[in-house]
């Protein structure tokens, strides 16, 4: 009876008490976790299909298998991760800068665009089996002999909508940061830029070495805001590249639809790969690592209630990452023999190796900040933060190992890459960090709503952690035995590892179901619906009393 009551009304959640900022954040969070579930189910279907290829809905069909493989990262990365990160940051920037969000309407535009765009990409793969994979290696996305032109057009428009939503997020973030209101009323754009790029942290370190007083005792922007500012630069460049690639594919598909036949070989496949990987790698090696480092710093300071250890070094490391993240894309092209050897050596190996330094620094600073605040209570947010640290502690060295001309020759495109590196980084490293943020932000976003069950939270934690590490490990072991990542094995190859990886994948789906149940039973179906109804309170800030004049003006 109690469960039915919770299912309908939640614990003590009251959607009508939420502000516009809280509501728009929660809308994106809800969509994000629904897409996460879809990505988890898709991933599990693929894992189980490698044990039994005839499971429904795949039924031993490579067309269907690769359609799922194409949309799985679109749903997982853009539909879920982007939405969750964007929602958190569009809430945190006003919270941390004590200024209102530039536009709640634009924030609504962002989640709606990303949701519709993701759904369109999914539909293109589901109905038309459009399956060029997320890599979109030219000229495959324009190969009308294999794929439906209409399916391709729907898919590309979907991805374009996601990128337009992304640009909306970027505008909202920078417009909020550069707004000359509240604590930044007297700051110049130059001061905000210097702080945003971490230049003040670097200058403070140099001045200290020279025995001078610090360049800036009170930086204009707090460190987590610097990380968001810096990571958003990469998000912008990445959006431009993906949009550019999308336009190219769309032009060819529209030409085909109009009856024209264009030569796909007018575009150089290797040059395209360089362009595309430069942009796509800004997601993996740019914004993810930078956003994650910023999130660790924020979580560590909120959990401990203390200042971050070695803050100037952390700021300077974010500046170093600016150089690193823009110059590492060639590690994706170590198996391409037409790629100049010097680019492989410098960009693919040497600069990439610096990610060990930047991420190692972030790990160190976070751990020491926590350590200095002992004893701490092992809360859910702390547990998840430690899980996130383990994830990147495993995944980053795995990446450095494969970003090597010797190792890449036998690891490229194997399950090692996608298992031991990518899925451990995303599922364990990134998502456990995001879950930590969810637990930290939960009371702020829901006005102190009680969680239905801490037992469900713990069960979710352990299933997610063990399932994530286990799946990555067994996929990685299969990769070391030669199993490819983009091949549908249908004759029981690598069977033992695939059974174990499938069991871990199922654990991840069960973990998600437990998390979802806990959230639904906390906010109730009524509360969920209420989140999507218009807010009565149009406040676009959080934690400021009294409201700044600009907010009052907006409310009038």
């Amino acid at each position, binding site marked *: 009876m109690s469960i039915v009551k919770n299912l309908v009304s939640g614990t003590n959640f009251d959607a009508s008490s939420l502000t516009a900022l809280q509501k728009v954040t929660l809308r994106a969070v809800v969509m994000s976790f629904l897409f996460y579930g879809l990505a988890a189910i898709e991933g599990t279907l693929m894992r189980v299909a490698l044990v039994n290829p005839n499971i429904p809905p795949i039924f031993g069909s490579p067309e269907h298998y*690769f359609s799922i493989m194409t949309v799985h990262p679109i749903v997982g990365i853009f539909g879920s991760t982007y939405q969750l990160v964007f929602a958190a940051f569009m809430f945190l920037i006003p919270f941390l800068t004590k200024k209102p969000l530039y536009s709640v309407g634009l924030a609504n535009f962002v989640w709606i665009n990303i949701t519709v765009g993701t759904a369109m990409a999914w539909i293109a793969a589901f109905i038309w089996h459009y399956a060029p*994979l997320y890599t979109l290696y030219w000229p*495959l996305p324009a190969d009308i002999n294999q794929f439906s032109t209409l399916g391709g057009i729907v898919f590309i428009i979907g991805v374009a909508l996601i990128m337009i939503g992304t640009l909306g997020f970027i505008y909202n973030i920078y417009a909020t940061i550069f707004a000359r209101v509240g604590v930044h009323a007297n700051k110049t754009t130059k001061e905000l830029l210097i702080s945003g790029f971490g230049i003040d942290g670097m200058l403070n370190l140099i001045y200290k070495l020279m025995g001078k007083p610090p360049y800036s005792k009170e930086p204009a922007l707090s460190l987590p805001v610097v990380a968001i500012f810096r990571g958003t630069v990469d998000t912008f460049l990445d959006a431009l590249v993906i949009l550019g690639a999308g336009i190219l594919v769309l032009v060819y598909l529209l030409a085909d639809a109009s009856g024209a036949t264009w030569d796909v070989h007018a575009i150089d496949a290797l040059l395209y790969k360089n362009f595309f990987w430069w942009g796509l790698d800004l997601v993996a090696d740019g914004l993810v690592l930078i956003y994650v480092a910023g999130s660790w710093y924020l979580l560590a300071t909120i959990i401990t209630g203390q200042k971050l250890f070695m803050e100037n070094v952390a700021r300077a490391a974010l500046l170093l990452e600016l150089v690193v993240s823009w110059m590492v894309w060639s590690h994706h092209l170590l198996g391409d023999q037409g790629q100049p050897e010097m680019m492989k050596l410098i960009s693919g190996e040497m600069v990439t190796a*610096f*990610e060990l330094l930047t991420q190692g620094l972030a790990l*160190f600073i976070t751990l020491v900040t926590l350590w200095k605040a002992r004893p701490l209570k092992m809360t859910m947010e702390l547990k998840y933060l*430690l899980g996130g640290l383990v994830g990147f502690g495993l995944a980053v060295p795995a990446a450095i190992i494969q970003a*090597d001309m010797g190792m890449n*020759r036998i690891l490229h495109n194997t399950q090692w890459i996608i298992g031991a590196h990518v899925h451990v980084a995303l599922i364990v490293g990134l998502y456990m960090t995001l879950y930590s943020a969810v637990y930290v932000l939960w009371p702020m976003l829901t006005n102190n709503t009680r969680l239905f069950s801490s037992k469900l939270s713990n069960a979710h934690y352990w299933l997610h952690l063990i399932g994530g590490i286990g799946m990555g490990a067994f996929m990685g072991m299969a990769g070391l035995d030669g199993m490819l990542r983009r091949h549908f094995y249908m004759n029981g190859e690598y069977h033992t590892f695939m059974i174990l990886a499938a069991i871990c994948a199922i654990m991840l789906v069960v973990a998600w179901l437990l998390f979802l149940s806990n959230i639904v039973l906390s906010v109730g179906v009524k509360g969920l619906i209420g989140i999507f109804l218009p807010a009565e309170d149009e406040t676009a800030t959080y934690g400021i009393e009294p409201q700044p004049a600009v907010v009052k003006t907006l409310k009038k």
Partner: protein
Amino acid sequence: MSFETSVELLRFHNVAYTIYALFIISVVAWFGYNLTRPEKAKSVVRIPFYGYIAFLVAGGVGHHIFTYNTIPWVSEDIMRHEIKPDKTFDIEMADHKFKLPEEKMKIHYGDRVYFNVKSHDLVYGFGLFRQDGSMISQMQVNPGSRNDLLWTFNECGVFDLMSTEYSGPEGNNMIIKDAVEVTGCDKGGKS
């Protein structure tokens, strides 16, 4: 120390990474346990900050120096245009099919073989695999650019050829069983 074949290298890699993975999980677990204890934990080892930074830099750069000196195909690959191969095979790829110069590419143990592969349409992969499914070597095959692999065969056997890059669902069948045969291990080589 030198790895003659990918099997030796992968075995080493498997052990080394497993030890590292267990180490980092244990460190964070120990850390988490001690975070909650009221009494101060004894330091197992004290790592100075700059020592840690030096370790990260040395680890990142040293890894490449280690592989350059222990994996023979790295320097061979970089210098492949200066090295005269013992044998050359020109291979073409189009319409999700390999076109081999001969039905079975026969190679002698220890030969340096130059594979020159051309794609006429899509991006493919060129990978050689042992009968147990483990990989010998691979490269990407892009249309419109050079795709050449110099490989010294330090092992005998019959190997399969497979496209290692996705080229659409039709590419899933791009496998040629027993495409390469390496013989001669009984004459001074390995068996």
